[in-house]
């Protein structure tokens, strides 16, 4: 069988290549084999599925909070439960859903889009996933054993310090950060290496699909931002709590504002770490569903890169109310507003792409249009928040809650849902039900605006954040009742989405390799892709290799098919440099992650676990890098 997309190659027995590749990329069966898998689709899909489960958990937490706030003086939740829920909601959505799901999409799609067989460091990839999973289980184990963190997802000191948050709750939060940050750093490192060194020959920097550009930029941001939160949560907070270091304890001369600076130096880039991959997804949907190349490719790339740079220079706008000197604050206002320029350029480019394209009204395209509506509104309220006098009024009110849900749900969740509908045929081999997809969109869109629009007004009317109840005399009843009603509509949309995914996965129409006639390389292989992605590695002759005529398509020959081998190319022009054997599947990433997870969990309870941690981590890594004699080498 030859795929329609594959070029006709003479002198090569394609069927024999396929058989060789199948053998080389096969993984052992059973649970052992399942835990040993290192192919990027398997790991990427595990990220995506796990993240969606956490999205469901975070959504349930949000819905419980909405029930509590639906009417004044409600006693549905105690303040203690409410504080745990909003902390869990924020933590889950930021650390266990939004970042991992974007990484999962990247891990799944980037090697396919680049025309290679796997990520650069497959075992690190598997290790990162298990660390993330362990962190998520650890946090929820905390919640269900009445140790759910309750100091907010930002855990400001001294409230989160040993004086005012006794018990293990905040320790669980801070250590969970360690897990997820290790995971994020693993993905960032391997995606950077993959995108810079493993592109298909011919895919020079100006031909990289925009989604891969956004994953590259996001990964660099992760490398610079995540160490900051590990300093804040692990070095400052956890050490203050467990061994009395007093970094940020004002009672002993520490500085609570230092914590805020370091946390937000991570915290603001974090928003772009979530949002930038979503921009790439929009570009992928828009080019396919308007039948034309995205307008202004260089402007799009430069905007994303500029967003990443500026994103590191505006953390102080989270701290305008702390009384910093005015001259510095004006700088941060200007920097915050500059994001409006880089986002604006991208929005304009998409609009003119649609303007001169042929729109296909797919479910994915609906989500993109929802993105325009919601994200532009959220971006514009962001301009309001950048102005210091206005921020001082609406900071820490429901206006901010409305704003960041508009930018995060509009700017990341809607594109993600669009992308999920768009790539569903590639993930599963079957088409997703478009009609139900559109109904899902309308439910989410209407429900979202009903939930979050009234919050702008509640904020202006003085409703502060993170309050578990309010009096009826405050005049906040109607806005809150409306928001809770909207949340129910969102819940219905979410349930419909889950049903659609399961039904379509089982009984959707067969998709074939490229059902949407897209132009990028992930559509050049079977749906779902085989473990080795491509029988013959493709060559990129343009930005949209599949939109060139079949006879112009080229393939790479000379890469060994009897072992896990990929082609390494140059950074700028993607000229082939050498062949690079990737490691085989291995159980050791799982064992290492498990041992380190046990040590990190233990160190929350007793200092001695730090020593044990060094030893067991060493055991895991020795096993990992031990030159085991491989089966395929013998055969």
């Amino acid at each position, binding site marked *: 069988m030859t795929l329609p997309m594959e070029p006709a190659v003479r002198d090569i027995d394609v069927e024999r290549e396929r058989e060789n590749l199948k053998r080389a990329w096969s993984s052992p069966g059973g649970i052992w084999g399942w835990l040993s898998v290192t192919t990027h689709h398997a790991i990427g899909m595990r990220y995506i599925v796990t993240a969606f489960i956490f999205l469901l958990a975070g959504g349930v937490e949000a819905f419980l909070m909405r029930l509590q706030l639906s009417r004044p003086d409600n006693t549905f939740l105690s303040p203690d439960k409410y504080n745990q829920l909003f902390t869990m909601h924020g933590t889950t959505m930021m650390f266990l859903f939004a970042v991992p799901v974007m990484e999962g999409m990247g891990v799944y799609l980037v090697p396919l889009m680049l025309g290679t067989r796997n990520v650069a460091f497959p075992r690190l990839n598997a290790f990162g996933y298990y660390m993330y999973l362990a962190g998520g289980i650890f946090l929820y184990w905390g919640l269900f054993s009445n140790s759910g963190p309750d100091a907010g997802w930002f855990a400001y000191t001294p409230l989160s310090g040993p004086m005012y948050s006794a018990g293990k709750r905040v320790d669980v939060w801070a250590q969970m950060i360690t897990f997820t940050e290790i995971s994020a750093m693993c993905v960032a490192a391997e995606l950077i290496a993959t995108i810079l060194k493993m592109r298909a020959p011919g895919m020079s920097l100006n031909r990289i699909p925009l989604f891969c550009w956004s994953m590259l930029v996001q990964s660099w941001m992760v490398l610079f931002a995540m160490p900051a939160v590990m300093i804040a949560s692990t070095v400052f907070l956890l050490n203050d709590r467990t061994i009395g270091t007093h970094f940020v304890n004002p009672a002993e001369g520490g500085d609570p504002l230092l914590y805020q600076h370091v946390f937000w130096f991570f915290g603001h880039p974090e928003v772009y770490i979530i949002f930038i991959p979503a921009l790439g997804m929009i570009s992928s949907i828009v080019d396919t569903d308007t039948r034309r190349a995205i307008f202004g490719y260089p402007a799009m790339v430069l905007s994303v890169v500029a967003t990443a740079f500026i994103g590191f220079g505006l953390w102080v706008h989270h701290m305008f109310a702390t009384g910093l000197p*005015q001259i510095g604050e004006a700088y941060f206002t200007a920097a915050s507003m500059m994001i409006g320029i880089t986002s604006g350029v991208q929005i304009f480019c998409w609009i003119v792409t649609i303007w001169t394209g042929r729109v296909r009204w797919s479910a994915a395209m609906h989500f993109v249009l929802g993105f325009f509506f919601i994200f532009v509104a959220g971006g514009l309220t962001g301009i309001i928040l950048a102005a210091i006098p206005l921020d001082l009024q609406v900071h820490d009110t429901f206006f901010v809650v409305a704003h960041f849900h508009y930018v995060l749900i509009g700017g990341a969740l809607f594109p993600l849902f669009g992308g999920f509908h768009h790539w569903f045929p590639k993930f599963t081999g079957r088409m997703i039900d478009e009609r139900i997809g559109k109904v899902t969109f309308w439910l989410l869109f209407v429900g979202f605006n009903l939930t979050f629009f009234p919050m702008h007004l509640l904020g202006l009317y003085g409703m502060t954040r993170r309050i578990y109840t309010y009096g009826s005399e405050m005049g906040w009843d109607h806005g809150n009742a409306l928001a809770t009603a909207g949340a129910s509509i969102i819940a219905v949309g979410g349930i419909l989405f889950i049903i659609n995914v399961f039904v379509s996965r089982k009984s959707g129409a067969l998709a074939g390799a490229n059902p949407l006639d897209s132009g990028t390389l992930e559509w050049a292989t079977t749906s779902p892709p085989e473990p080795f992605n491509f029988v013959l590695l493709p060559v990129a002759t343009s930005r949209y290799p599949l939109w060139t005529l079949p006879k112009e398509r080229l393939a790479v020959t000379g890469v060994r098919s009897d072992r896990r081998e990929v082609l390494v190319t140059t950074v700028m022009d993607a000229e082939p440099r050498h062949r690079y054997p990737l490691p085989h599947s291995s159980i050791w990433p799982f064992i290492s992650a498990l041992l380190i997870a046990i040590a990190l969990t233990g160190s929350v309870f007793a200092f001695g676990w730090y020593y044990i941690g060094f030893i067991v981590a060493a055991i895991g890594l020795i096993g990992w890098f031990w030159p085991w004699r491989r089966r395929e080498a013998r055969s």
Partner: protein
Amino acid sequence: MIRRAALIPAIAALALLSGCGAKVQSAMDPAGPEAGRIAGLMWFFIILVSVIFVVVMACVLYALFRGPRGIEQEPLERTHAPSTATEEKLTRNVTAATVATVVILFGLLVASVVTGRAISSLGTAKNGITVEVTGNQWWWYVRYPNDIAQWTVVTANEIHIPVGRPVQIRGTSNDVIHSFWVPNLNGKIDLIPSRVTERWIQADRPGRFRGQCAEFCGLQHAHMALWVIADPPDKFQAWMNAQLQAPQPPGDPELQRGQQVFLNHACVYCHTIGGTSAMASVGPDLTHFGSRSTIAAGTLPNTKGNLGGWITDPQNVKPGNHMAVVDIKADELQPLIDYLESLK
């Protein structure tokens, strides 16, 4: 038609915003020069961003529903991109839109910085007074400092200010970070332990303005409110004089009994009542408790019934707060309430 449809939500938003008369605390109902300037700037921003929103949405809808003019001759199935001439036209449009964005944002930046400067210059007026506010879990310690120690007034959860005079709030915290925010008068300022921060407020009309802690501070963050009461200067002075007066020992035997109940119970470990042996500063100063309008930091109106409920079971209304349950016998409660309410 499309444009009109897009305008509806914007108009609805503005209509909802302007109908804000009856709100207890609102940034859009300013009562002083600081809040007034902010509200003006807020309206400017809201109207401008609403217009931008409508224009962008109109562009999206136009892009979607216009016929594919100008590119019929160029079948996208083959080239997947319009002609160079079309692309150049698009480049000009995108460039123009980007330039417009830069210009608008620069204008907004200038408006924001100018307003910020104007607001901070209000605080330099010479006839200002200073009020120290210290955040506590979950109440506000309020002090009117004076060079002469006897003229210093200490109260809690209520700030009286004279109309028309700038008031400097000097804030700090005894425990975790809180944030002082009275939306009708000015933006918020965090109260940070080990630091002193300041914000100027001023009321141009008499009234009662509610404020609320705006930085998450633990279990009872929701019940940490305060009232700012702006009075004409003579009325403010009268209040100040009353606060400065040392309370007289109660003459009424029933009130004397109430005072004994207070002094013989654990109340004295946390509270101060001037002129008695109760001099602790863990909880609010009760010297002029009867003159305050609320109890438990704005949680309940200060009535005898509410006070009785609060003393008997403080964890019921405000679960998690630091007020201890004091074992007061049934026949002691009424004298205690009467005594506390007599402290005007």
